[in-house]
């Protein structure tokens, strides 16, 4: 890339302080038209904050932003939108009460005279979304559709907005392989239209797949700007973590030794999950694989009692149990790390400390308050072992970066030391360092004899820790892979396999 071309967007010496944190420390970022630029860094490195400073969500404490050489200072998101900067922020940020089309065109609806031209809006929306491979009725409320669809809509909206710059903050976190490929083809098209694209993700192979160059942040500082064509994967990782990543040694998984812990028979709920059976031993990790919407989350929620099943028999340690709601499940020593951190996981305003002991406290009941000493001990312990990055334990958890929130939630459940732990997308939005840690952690928990059920979209991950993998398709249990069968290809094949063939087998 020849740098004498005038950059499309240039950020110079951006700093941002938060009470207790220096989120950004004099950060430079340079984007060129027709360049796809990756923004890399651990959880809490400051990626999202940088984006928010660039697009006027936060006021930056110092630094300048130049768009095509002209100094700009967007103080509101719609300023930056008018400047031609389209952004997808980290969490899906759309309005569930509006229709898909309304979300797509909010603020720039096609008008007829003084009035919004709904018909045109809907048809346009339908066409746009078709390019992203989803066929839905854009006149329906957004809330009717899944996280996946919502994510796609958000991306589509940003793309439509971006005349000059498109910023995507972890857009692929909740997308499937196909959907990612679709997205990439769109991005490439934009690249040809000489847009500058910023792409934030923790999936390095996606980075190397599509990005030209990358800026790496660590603890709010730029530690390097690299041309990906000439850089190796390991160098990037080292740059991000500031250390070598302990080579992903796949310790031979401990055999599922223990005796049967939980037996699930004929669990089902119409419209959510068809008959699901599972027998789980102590110290066993069972993976749940499947496409988006295949029903992994539903399975998890049904087992945990978050959603009441129509029927199904649960036998725990030999005796049958009824789970009418999460409380019953917790009482039995179950735990569930939900998929949607923001809405089902964190309690935003509460301190990290309170969030960590929440489940434990809930189980003890409100009368018996956990002693302060113990609270401190627990909190300190998990912050250390999971290496949660925070200013102090009293800060509201919503101020943690996405990945660190995820870790805190894990801590919440480990604190209750459960004997059956359900993880729904545990590594979603988590940086490679932490990713490795969590996988290692799963291994350790397993050794301690805990049984785990892990729903994940990442094959390698499943392969890494599962003793068994159950494959779901269209809310039905279609295949179970054991031991040596567990390879990415087999899983993918099972997922993709044509129902007829399945039936024949």
């Amino acid at each position, binding site marked *: 890339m020849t740098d004498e071309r005038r950059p499309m967007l240039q950020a110079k010496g951006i700093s941002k302080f938060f009470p207790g944190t220096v989120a950004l420390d004099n950060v430079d970022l340079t984007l060129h038209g027709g360049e796809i630029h990756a923004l890399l860094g651990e959880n809490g490195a400051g990626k999202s904050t940088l984006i928010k400073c660039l697009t006027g969500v936060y006021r930056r404490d110092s630094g300048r932003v130049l768009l095509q050489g002209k100094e700009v200072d967007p103080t509101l998101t719609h300023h930056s939108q008018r400047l031609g900067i389209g952004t997808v922020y980290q969490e899906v940020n759309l309005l569930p009460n509006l229709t898909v089309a309304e979300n797509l065109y909010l603020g720039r609806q096609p008008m007829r005279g003084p009035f919004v031209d709904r018909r045109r809006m809907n048809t346009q929306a339908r066409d746009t979304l078709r390019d992203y491979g989803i066929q839905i009725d854009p006149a329906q409320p957004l809330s009717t559709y899944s996280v996946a669809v919502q994510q796609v809509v958000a991306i589509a909206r940003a793309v439509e907005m971006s005349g000059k710059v498109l910023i995507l903050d972890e857009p692929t976190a909740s997308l499937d392989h196909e959907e990612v490929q679709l997205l990439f083809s769109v991005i490439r098209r934009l690249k040809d239209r000489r847009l500058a694209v910023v792409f934030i993700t923790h999936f390095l192979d996606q980075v190397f797949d599509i990005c030209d160059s990358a800026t790496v942040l660590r603890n709010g500082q730029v530690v390097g700007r690299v041309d990906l064509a000439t850089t190796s994967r390991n160098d990037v990782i080292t740059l991000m973590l500031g250390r070598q990543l302990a080579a992903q040694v796949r310790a031979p998984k401990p055999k599922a030794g223990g005796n049967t812990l939980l037996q699930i028979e004929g669990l089902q709920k119409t419209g959510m999950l068809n008959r699901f059976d599972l027998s789980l031993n102590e110290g066993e990790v069972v993976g749940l694989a499947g496409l988006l919407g295949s029903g992994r989350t539903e399975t998890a929620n049904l087992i945990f009692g978050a959603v009441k099943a129509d029927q199904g028999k649960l036998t725990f340690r030999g005796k049958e149990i009824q789970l009418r709601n999460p409380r019953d499940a917790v009482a039995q020593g179950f735990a569930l790390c939900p998929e949607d951190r923001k809405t089902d996981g964190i309690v935003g305003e509460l301190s990290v400390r309170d969030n960590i002991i*929440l489940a434990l406290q809930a189980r003890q009941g409100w009368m018996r308050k956990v002693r302060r000493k113990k609270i401190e001990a627990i909190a300190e312990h998990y912050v250390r072992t999971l290496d949660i990055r925070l200013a102090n334990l009293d800060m509201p958890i919503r101020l943690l970066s996405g990945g660190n929130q995820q870790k805190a939630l894990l801590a919440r459940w480990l604190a209750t030391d459960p004997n059956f732990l359900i993880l729904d997308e545990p590594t979603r939005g988590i940086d490679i360092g932490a990713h490795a840690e969590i996988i290692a952690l799963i291994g350790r928990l397993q050794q301690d004899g805990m049984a785990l059920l892990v729903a994940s979209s990442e094959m390698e991950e499943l392969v890494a820790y599962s003793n068994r993998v159950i494959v779901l398709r269209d809310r039905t249990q279609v295949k179970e892979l054991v031991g040596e069968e567990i390879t990415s290809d087999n899983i993918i094949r099972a997922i993709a396999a044509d129902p007829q063939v399945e039936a024949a087998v």
Partner: protein
Amino acid sequence: MTRNAFLRRITPQLIILAIVLGLNVLVFPDFFDVEMKNGRLFGNLIDVLNRGAPTALLCLGMTLVIATKGIDLSVGAVMAIAGATAASLVVEGNHWLVAVLGALSVGALCGLWNGFLVAFLRIQPIVATLVLMVAGRGIAQLITEGTILTFLDPGLIHLGAGTVLGVPTPVLIWLTLGLFVAVFVRRTALGMLIEAIGINEASSRLAGINSRVLLVCVYVVSGIGAAIAGVIVAADIQGADANNAGLWLELDAILAVVIGGNSLLGGRFSIVASLLGAMIIQSVNSLILLSGMPPEFNLIIKALLIIAILVIQSPKVGHLLYILRASAPQPHPKQLPPLKENLR
């Protein structure tokens, strides 16, 4: 929370209270005089404490309700019902304790009803409690048949007009209850759990918190608090005035909670701060009375004072002050702004 965190939390309220009391002294120099007159403490300060009792008692429940993202418009009506119940019971010749118990259980019942609508039928709190707000006075009047039900039972009257060691009974009642509740919610995990459901009920539920029961509880507490307030008000005038008892008092209570720096969006709460809020409001009322202005100015004075107070308190202004004080933002948790920085 630690002592100085607690102090930091209630500082704004203390300052404002001081200011308003100061204004009182301005319009009425010997405002702080307190003397003994025939066996009871006598003075404006005592009046503020005494007249603030109903609002303070309403605050207790209201604070908890608001912490769960709710609101309880029915407390005024519940006061009327409770007063009417107590009065009619003593008039029928029951012992005053029976009457009080009766009133309290009626209050609890009202709270149960509200809680049921909110927690189980999932009706938005404002509407849910609006129902009882409208119907409640009717029920109260149904009990008194529209008349002011006068009674002479000394035991009951003592609760409103009596004194213990010269201190008006209502003052003792609200101070004890207030202290009790404030300590109780923090000594137990109740406070934290309530805050949790107020902030994110879905998560709390998944974490195994029994949100419904907690929700019902806070409304019951609110109902009981209102009932006590109702009994006190009735006892104070030796009669149950179903139509006027606690009229619009729910608004004062909500104001007090907000002046106490608690967010109407639920979450973190401080009972003590709310109680201070109640006292602030009562001081404003006393200021109006003492000022001797013609009554048509009452409302406008109250409005302006309250607006001033709220503006001073608003997180934004608080943050601005913080920025002005700390020239350069230092990354030390100790220097956190009293009112935490608002995300936009």
